[in-house]
Structures are given as C-alpha cells and as structure tokens.
C-alpha cells in the first residue's frame, strides 16, 4: 500500500486545472463560432456570437467563485450573499438578452450560439474526464 504522503493529489489538481481551463476553452469555442457567423452572415453576427461567448465565460467564472465562496465559508450568510451576487449576474444576462431581442432580434441567434459555447465545452470536458477515469480504473 502506498504511503498517503507520497500519493499525489491527482483529482484536486485535475479539477483545478479543468476549472481554470474551461473559461479559456469557452472563449476559444466562441471565437470559432464567431468566425463561422462572420463568414455566414456578416460582421455584426460575428461580434454578437463573440459577445455571447464572453458572457458565458464570465457567467462560468461567477458561478465558480460563488460556489467557492459558499463552500469555503459554509454559513447561511455566505450562501445568501453568494446567491445574491449570482442572481445579479443572471439579471445582467437577462438584460443583455432582452436588449438584443428588443433592438436586434435577428442577432439573437448569433448571441445564443456564442453563449451556448459553454454547453459544448462542458460536455467535451465531461467526456474527457470519463475517458481518463476509465484509463485509471484499468
């Protein structure tokens, strides 16, 4: 049996790496989507797709920080404060979507496509983690 002191803290390191990597991957994915939108329907669609990706990456960072804050403190007060900040961020996302729907209704698809980059990235990371887990089990 291995000495616990010599065992590397593998999952924590992996988890931290993944959590740091995800916002950058969201931005990279959003850049790809915006390039596609740029080629498909022009400059504004590309910019809106990129903006959607930036909002998604900021939302991810916000949720990660709120969760960390809640779990580190572990108090009801911290939970309330973390949730309050997260609600404010959701309201900002809603405001961004509402403004686009009201003033640029045709661009909402491009914005949503950029915003959905987070789904693709998280699913990709989940598949990658599953493959790694299977390899380690062997």
């Amino acid at each position, binding site marked *: 049996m291995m000495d616990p002191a010599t065992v590397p803290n593998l999952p924590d390191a992996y988890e931290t790496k993944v959590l740091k990597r995800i916002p950058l991957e969201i931005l990279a994915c959003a850049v790809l989507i915006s390039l596609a939108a740029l080629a498909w329907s022009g400059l504004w669609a590309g910019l809106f797709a990129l903006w959607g990706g930036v909002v998604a990456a900021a939302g*991810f960072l916000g949720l990660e920080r709120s969760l960390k804050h809640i779990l580190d403190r572990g108090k009801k007060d911290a939970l309330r404060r973390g949730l309050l900040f997260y609600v404010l961020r*959701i309201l900002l996302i809603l405001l961004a979507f509402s403004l686009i729907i009201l003033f640029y209704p045709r661009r909402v698809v491009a914005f949503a496509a950029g915003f959905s980059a987070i789904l693709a990235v998280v699913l990709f990371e989940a598949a990658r983690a599953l493959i790694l887990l299977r390899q380690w089990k062997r």
Partner: protein
Amino acid sequence: MILKAKDRSGFRRLADLSSLVLMLPSSIAVGLFFGYLLDKLLGTRPWMLFVFLLLGTASGFYSLLRGLQRYTKDETDDGSSDRP
C-alpha cells in the same frame, strides 16, 4: 486504494460542478429555441422569444438552487464523515 477513493471523490465533485454549470445555460438555450420556433410559427416576434427566455431562466435558476442545495448537503456530509 487511497488514490482510487480520492479519484472518485474528485471526479464526482467535478461531475456535480459540471451539472450545476450546465443547468442555467441549457435552460436558457432551450427557452430561446422554443421561443424562436413559436415566433416563427405564430408570427409574434419577439414576444414568444422574450416569454420563453424568462421561463428558461426561471426554470434554470430553480434547478440550480435545488442542485446547489443537494451539492452543499453532500459536501457537508462528506466533511463530517471524514472526521474521526
């Protein structure tokens, strides 16, 4: 043995976080999709999009709250079970 148990808890935490992260954007995306579709079918642009965006956000936030409650409860349970 130790490494395997640690791996499992790390991956479990990562999976829980991933599901929490996915709840809100996926609900918003589904709401936008249905709103856009209904607007096209009914010719009500942009109202259905707006209504379904609100519904998607509300349902995503509700799921997120429930998931968060479960996650914090699990974390507390794991923390207390680690103690001698």
